[in-house]
């Protein structure tokens, strides 16, 4: 079997596996639904996610340890993940093939030549890692933490990595020295003063290819494909910010028609990470000592634009192995030796750009946090899924992959637009007007699937405040407020209380107080009194107008009498005792009352599930709305004392 066939089979296998894992992320009981399928496996294999979570939280959460396997294999094989596994890479490769059909040999060589802009992805990588790195830095400088050995180890590893990067830059050695000194000085000062000027934020997910393709497939493609066939969801899924996600995905696909693997070459921070790691890879693509005729056939099919015919750029090679297949002279090979025409093992990065990217990344987060969304200016309309950590901790973990939105059985979790600031783009928030119900209060699916524990895993007992958690009470994601200016019984003398009916907790968090409200313009003069009815002087009533069971007649100071129904001139009443004689009714006037049950929220019972908001019949802007007050994840948002 040709090596290319093997590669294509591998790509197809991993692509289909990826699609399969997207499909089975459906809550249900059938074998093809969520029952232990490793739906996060691709995210976990992605070492960029593992590394950035390590930087932002100084921990590697659960399955993210899989990233070590990928890194280890990259040290041995090079960028195998890009060429053989990555589903987004495979999609782009197909697009590149389609775009290149019918092109001349010369044109194909031209579009696969190395381009200076391929360096951009390394700057993106450094920028993104720098935004996350404050978490680990802060932790290392923290004097309250024991373990000086661990700190020394981490500092040495960091210094080594920096030194290696800078060693390969022009004028890098001197810069490395200066930077190391500056960092050391800053470290000592911060350590002594215990100041915390840096803040971590995990923004890797914006451009990480695995998070990107998960998001694009589960929030855009799957709903599009599924809406006519209704296999994964009975009701068409809605995701408000999916438009931008889908258009970006489309843009990258179209760009790779023109330049093969456009995203891989210029943008992909994961590819950049693998590029840096492949510096040490044992096996790599290169030329044997002689035989090359400079025919450049290898370059017309090169996916990574790594110039295999000349001095090969090892960090750009995605291991597509097209050059091996194309080479008619048997010169190209995958071996452990140095390539005959030399290798450029580290990308040609500019020192100033590297420093700018890292400093920019470190500085960007404090600048973004000036909006105060994670502190005093917290947004009451940002309702995070159950299990979400406090906002600042949440932002150091969420990779915007959309798995929580995908798995939510009621389609109530949505990617944020700018509601939670630029930093919170595409992070999950709850939107109760949409979806098939509010947040089901006995469901913990989202917290269980979150690959980075931005939503920490909850048990049903913890969510409901039962068993071991009985003393802490149920988890609250917010609290409902009645808008008395829009509520039908409060503002419009109209019975309703759908919110009360649907409130799922026991005892209900919505209770009612009953009152009898005089109906507008309902005072009438009585002509005669019969056994169970009143005949009025004027016949101006609409027949059966008061026959809904909610209307009462007020006769003097008697208890209001229920109205059964009415004709033009007559009110038929539900009487137990006799009605008073006509001359006993003062002024012979009566009026009509409507019985209203007005809803109130009990803040001690409300868990913010939003079922009331979802069901409220005031459809535009709901008359009962959940706000982030009282959410369990932030003690400072507590509203009630008990």
């Amino acid at each position, binding site marked *: 079997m040709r090596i290319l066939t093997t590669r294509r089979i591998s790509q197809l296998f991993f692509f289909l596996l990826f699609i399969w894992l997207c499909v089975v992320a459906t809550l249900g009981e059938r074998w093809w639904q969520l029952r232990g399928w490793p739906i996060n496996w691709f995210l976990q294999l992605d070492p960029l996610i593992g590394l950035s979570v390590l930087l932002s939280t100084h921990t590697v959460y659960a399955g993210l340890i899989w990233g070590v396997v990928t890194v280890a294999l990259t040290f041995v094989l090079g960028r195998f993940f890009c060429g053989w596994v990555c589903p987004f890479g495979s999609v782009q490769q197909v697009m590149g093939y389609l775009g290149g059909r019918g092109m001349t040999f010369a044109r194909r060589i031209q579009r696969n030549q190395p381009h200076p802009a391929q360096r951009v992805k390394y700057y993106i990588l450094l920028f993104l890692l720098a935004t996350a790195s404050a978490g680990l830095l802060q932790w290392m400088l923290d004097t309250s933490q024991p373990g000086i050995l661990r700190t020394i180890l981490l500092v040495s590893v960091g210094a080594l990595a920096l030194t290696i990067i800078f060693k390969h830059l022009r004028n890098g050695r001197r810069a490395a020295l200066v930077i190391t000194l500056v960092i050391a000085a800053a470290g000592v000062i911060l350590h002594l003063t215990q100041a915390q000027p840096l803040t971590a934020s995990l923004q890797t997910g914006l451009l990480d290819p695995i998070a990107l393709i998960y998001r694009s497939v589960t929030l855009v493609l799957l709903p599009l494909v599924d809406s006519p066939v209704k296999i994964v969801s009975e009701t068409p899924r809605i995701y408000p910010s999916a438009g931008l996600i889908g258009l970006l995905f489309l843009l990258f696909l179209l760009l790779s028609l023109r330049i093969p693997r456009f995203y891989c070459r210029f943008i992909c921070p994961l590819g950049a990470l693998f590029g840096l790691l492949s510096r040490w890879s044992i096996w790599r693509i290169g030329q044997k000592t002689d035989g090359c005729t400079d025919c450049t056939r290898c370059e017309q099919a090169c996916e990574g634009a790594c110039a295999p015919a000349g001095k090969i750029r090892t960090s750009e090679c995605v291991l597509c192995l097209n050059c091996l297949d194309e080479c008619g002279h048997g010169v190209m090979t995958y071996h452990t030796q140095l390539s005959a025409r030399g290798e450029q093992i580290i990308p040609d990065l500019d020192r100033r750009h590297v420093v700018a990217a890292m400093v920019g990344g470190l500085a960007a987060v404090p600048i973004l946090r000036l909006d105060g969304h994670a502190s005093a200016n917290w947004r009451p309309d940002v309702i995070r899924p159950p299990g979400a950590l406090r906002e600042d901790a949440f932002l150091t973990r969420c990779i915007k992959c959309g798995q929580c939105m995908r798995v939510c059985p009621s389609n109530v979790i949505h990617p944020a637009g700018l509601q939670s600031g630029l930093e919170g783009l595409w992070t999950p928030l709850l939107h109760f007007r949409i979806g098939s119900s509010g947040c089901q209060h*006995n469901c913990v699916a989202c917290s269980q699937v979150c690959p980075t524990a931005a939503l920490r895993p909850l048990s049903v007992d913890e969510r409901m405040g039962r068993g071991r958690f009985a003393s802490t009470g149920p988890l609250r994601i917010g609290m409902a407020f009645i808008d008395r200016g829009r509520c039908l019984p409060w503002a419009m003398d109209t019975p309703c209380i759908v919110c009360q009916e649907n409130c799922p907790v026991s005892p209900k968090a919505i209770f009612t107080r009953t009152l009898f409200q005089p109906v507008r313009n309902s005072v009438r003069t009585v002509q005669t009194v019969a056994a169970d009815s009143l005949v009025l002087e004027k016949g101006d009533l609409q027949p059966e107008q008061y026959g809904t069971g909610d209307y009462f007649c007020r006769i003097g100071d008697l208890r209001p009498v229920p109205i059964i129904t009415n004709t033009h001139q007559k009110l038929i009443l539900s009487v137990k005792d006799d009605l008073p004689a006509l001359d006993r009714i003062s002024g012979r006037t009566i009026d009509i009352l409507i019985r209203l049950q007005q809803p109130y929220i009990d803040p001690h019972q409300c868990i913010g599930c939003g079922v009331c908001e979802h069901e409220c019949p005031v459809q535009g802007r709901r008359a009962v709305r959940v706000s982030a007050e009282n959410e369990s994840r932030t003690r400072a948002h507590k509203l009630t004392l008990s």
Partner: protein
Amino acid sequence: MPNELQSQPFDRRAFLRRMTRGLFGVIGAGAIGFSFWDRKGPEGESQSSAGVLPDFSIPSLAGRMSVAHGDHRGRMVREAVGALGGMAAFIRPGDRVLLKVNAAFAAPPAIGATSHPELVAQVVRMCREAGAAKVLVTDNPINDPGSCFTLSGISAAAHAEGAEIVLPDQDLFEPYSIPGATLIRHWPVLTAPLRRVDKVIGLAPVKDHHRSGASMTIKNWYGLLGGRRNIFHQQIHTIISELALLIKPTLVILDGTLSMMHNGPTGGSFDDLKATRTLIAGTDPVAVDTRGAELLGKTIEDLPHLRMAGDLLSR
């Protein structure tokens, strides 16, 4: 196709050819234009309604009711239906039967907010024994439909007995008007499963309902309504009485083995339930619900919709 015209001699033949093409162009443009010409512009929302639903009741069995007591739903429903003549009196061999259960909430069966799976299973089994060719089970719940049928245990119970769950897909609704009704006018109703069957059985638990007083077999038909049906709570008694007009069922079964005494219709706690140990089967939903109201300690005075439904049906 060449995109440059060569200079050619312009003779009579060329002139005629050009005339012909021109003529076809004029006719073609005119024909396309006229065939798509809309002189009136768009109209507002359509006010069409589907044809009237069939009457599923059996005239010879009208006005019958039986009451069974105990704790075992499966046995009680056999007794109660047996007293009415057995399921064979209602279901003919080859009939297709729809069970309208209450699956309104994504809650476990123990909470009592939904039809009990044991009862669903037994009724399906009885229909099959009577020779039913197919048994469908449906509801348009309040919470997410898939979750409701799964968590309530109804899905598993129905499948185990060979019934089919019909989830409330949007395509199964059609705008429907009840003749003589004021609220259910051009309103989306889950009619597709109703049009596919010969018999309809309603299966409801006894529950407290703060707005209407009680939720029993007539209120259970609310789960056939689609759209933003919550606006009907403004006239809850009127809508429930119209539901009695919407469906003329073959049989209704009211499960008061446990009754939800308060905090309804969702419940959520065992404290909300009381062992009332009663199951009522009958062909007159108003009578069945009137008897069921006693389990909640209520009378027809507390539930105006029962009187209103009786009035509407006797009109």
